[in-house]
């Protein structure tokens, strides 16, 4: 909850919902939980606008409310984390597309766009979208199956509802209802699609939303598997993937350490697979190599049933966070600074003299770099003072050390700042080139309209020529810039995810 984060959130909200909603959201971010009238008074917006904004924010699960002591008034609270997740929506959609295919992707996309929706409505909407594409016809039954499988895989969850009629409803959810699918009447869907009449479906009032946690679980596993693939090879990556898969049978998804997984289970799965012949042949060796590696993320916990193994998720992310920070030091300062940083990490507490000796860096440079690291807050100094004995010279030791959670938090803040900078820059570029972008859009609309009317190629070429070659060049450049900024925005989000994972585990 920093000012930097607030700035990023403000940008995201105003990008998506406009300035009024941004004002309300930012008020709640800054002042914390507040009732409606406070917001109205302090933002200076008319009551209607504030109400509307709150509705929007609640709809997208960016704000939740609980009844005040006076049960007729609600207290609204801003959920900052969910706002940042809006940047991650493309990733969620992509993940679903890879795992479940195009139809499921559309279902998730629609739900993300709406915030929450009923099953029947989503299916109807997706059906409409798909039916435009003739050669790819899908029946309602298939779509329903896709939806059900998303719910059973816990990518979609039911959101709480209220049963009693009160000014401020208490939202509840019965146990077991979170992932239990309700009735979906395909018959009615078909009829409604044919007649085009709005229909009262049986699952009205049963709303579904995306379960971010489940997506994060997948993303977390993906990071771990990718890391192992990079460090060892694909076979080792596959082994870890299967280990994680088997872990879920026995362990809570967010546990620090998995419960022991018998290795024989994984061996059986690999035997049935054909994709990794190497892994099949050298299975025991791979297990050995990974277990004995110095990273120590997978450890043997017992000899039962051919050996059972645990995977240390918390430690994995601690090591990843270290690597992220080490890279920051490397890029920001120097490889020598990174060496010093790692040395301090290995020794935990170290004197300046030892640094220059062990890191093989000239005394002066070692001193400069370690104090620069200290200045940039990567290192901390612990001073040990000896109690002065008599009137002799008082001795004190200076020890460098690293406070990882603090450094991780600092890098996270830097990520927010970068995100803010990139978004600001992008909107700035848009404003600066507004005239030319507008012109391009106008030309595009005209040429599209003319094409629809059946204009000849010559006429179309005339229209196209309204954009001069220099202008075209500028447009290309803007296009490149935008792509670059968007790409980096997604990559920064990856870093944020990694660091957040570490901080959550911590």
């Amino acid at each position, binding site marked *: 909850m920093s000012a930097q984060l607030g700035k990023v959130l403000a940008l995201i909200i105003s990008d998506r919902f406009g300035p009024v909603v941004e004002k309300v959201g930012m008020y709640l971010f800054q002042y914390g939980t507040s009732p409606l009238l406070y917001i109205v008074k302090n933002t200076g917006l008319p009551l209607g606008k504030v109400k509307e904004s709150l509705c929007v924010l609640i709809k997208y699960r960016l704000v939740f409310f609980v009844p005040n002591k006076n049960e007729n008034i609600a207290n609204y609270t801003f959920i900052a984390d969910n706002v940042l997740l809006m940047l991650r929506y493309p990733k969620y959609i992509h993940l679903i597309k890879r795992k479940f295919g195009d139809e499921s992707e559309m279902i998730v996309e629609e739900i993300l766009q709406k915030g929450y929706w009923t099953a029947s409505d989503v299916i109807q909407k997706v059906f409409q979208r798909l039916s435009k594409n003739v050669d790819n016809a899908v029946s309602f039954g298939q779509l329903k199956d896709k939806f059900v499988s998303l719910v059973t895989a816990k990518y979609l969850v039911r959101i709480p509802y209220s049963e009693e009629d009160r000014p401020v409803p208490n939202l509840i959810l019965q146990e077991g209802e979170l992932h239990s699918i309700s009735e979906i009447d395909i018959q009615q869907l078909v009829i409604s699609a044919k007649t085009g009449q709005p229909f009262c479906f049986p699952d009205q009032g049963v709303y579904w939303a995306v379960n971010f946690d489940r997506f994060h679980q997948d993303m977390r596993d993906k990071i771990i598997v990718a890391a192992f693939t990079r460090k*060892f090879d694909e076979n*080792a990556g596959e082994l870890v993937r299967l280990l994680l898969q088997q872990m879920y049978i026995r362990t809570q998804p967010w546990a620090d350490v998995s419960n022991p997984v018998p290795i024989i289970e994984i061996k059986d799965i690999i035997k049935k697979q054909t994709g990794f012949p190497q892994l099949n042949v050298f299975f025991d060796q791979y297990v050995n190599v990974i277990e004995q590696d110095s990273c120590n993320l997978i450890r043997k916990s017992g000899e039962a049933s051919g050996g059972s193994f645990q995977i240390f998720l918390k430690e994995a992310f601690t090591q990843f966070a270290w690597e992220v920070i*080490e*890279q920051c030091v490397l*890029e920001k300062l120097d490889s020598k600074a990174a060496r010093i940083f790692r040395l301090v990490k290995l020794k935990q507490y170290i004197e300046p003299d030892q640094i220059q000796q062990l890191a093989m*860096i000239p005394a002066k440079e070692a001193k400069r770099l370690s104090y620069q690291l200290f200045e940039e807050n990567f290192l901390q100094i612990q001073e040990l003072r000896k109690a002065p004995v008599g009137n002799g010279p008082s001795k004190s030791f200076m020890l460098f050390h690293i406070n990882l959670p603090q450094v991780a938090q600092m890098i996270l803040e830097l990520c927010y700042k*970068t995100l803010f900078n990139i978004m600001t820059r992008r909107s700035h570029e848009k404003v600066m080139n507004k005239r030319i972008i507008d012109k391009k859009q106008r030309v595009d609309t005209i040429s599209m309209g003319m094409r629809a009317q059946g204009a000849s190629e010559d006429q179309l070429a005339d229209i196209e020529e309204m954009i001069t070659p220099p202008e075209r060049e500028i447009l290309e450049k803007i296009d490149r810039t935008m792509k670059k900024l968007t790409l980096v925005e997604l*990559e920064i989000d990856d870093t944020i995810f990694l660091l957040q994972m570490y901080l959550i585990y911590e």
Partner: protein
Amino acid sequence: MEKKVQIKTEMSEDRGGDSSQTEDRDNVEARLLELAKSHPEGISNDDIKQHMKEVPLPEITTVINKCLKNGTFDLFRTKDKLFYKYKDPSKKTVNKGADNEEKVVYKIIEEAGNKGIWIRDIRFKSNLNMTQLNKVLKSLETKKIIKAVKSVSASKKKVYMLYDLEPDNTVTGGAWYQDQDFESEFVDVLSQQCHRYLLQKWEDANKISGGPLLARNRSYATAGDVHKFISELGISKVSLSVEDIESILYTVVLDNNAERILATNGSYLYRAVNRFLPSHGLVKTTCGVCPVANRCADMGLINPKVCTYLSDWLNN
């Protein structure tokens, strides 16, 4: 009463060039030294003849002459008889003519050994005042009995030690120092080469099929292996010890390019390793490496709209 005299023993020298003869001579010398050490009061020519009957006299003469020359033997005359006395070559006494102060200072410096001693410490120990001490040190230095060596740990600090001693590594800094300057380029080159060697070994091991365990075990290298590689490469003018290579390899480990494990015989094994993560998003932008990121804000002189770093990066 003993009286020290300097006499050149006039004996014919046997100049045998044969290798077997030199070997004999070493043997004779060892025996002679042994004999002299067991008689702290000195040995006479008769004693030598008695103990080494089979050795020809010219041979013994050569050896005695050599020992007298390098100062292992002292020659005495007691009651018109010549005695040879064993003298530890590492312990030299101050020349004659030295006064008491010089003797005291000499003793303090001698005690310090090859680590040397700082002038302040000499002053504390000897209780001499500064001007007097300076004079004494200067005189000892001109006589080539002691020398001053600059320490690497503090460039202005001079330490004194006996003239014929080789300074300790802590004073000179070892192989990495040339005239009190740390040769960081040399270290960098060595570190790169060590990394290259480990990488090469790792790649070779991976090429040979035989399972990951075998590949891993093959990719380990000892410091001795690396030492051999570096010596054969001939990039180093000074001769490096295995310990030197060990410390270079540790920097490779610190650079996260290798890992170090303890082998069963107590030595270290090194191996090139990969990192877990590719370079992440933050360092791909300019902001992650920006030197003025702390002063950057949405307004003011440094802001993302006019940031030159960002512009350069975007135009690239």
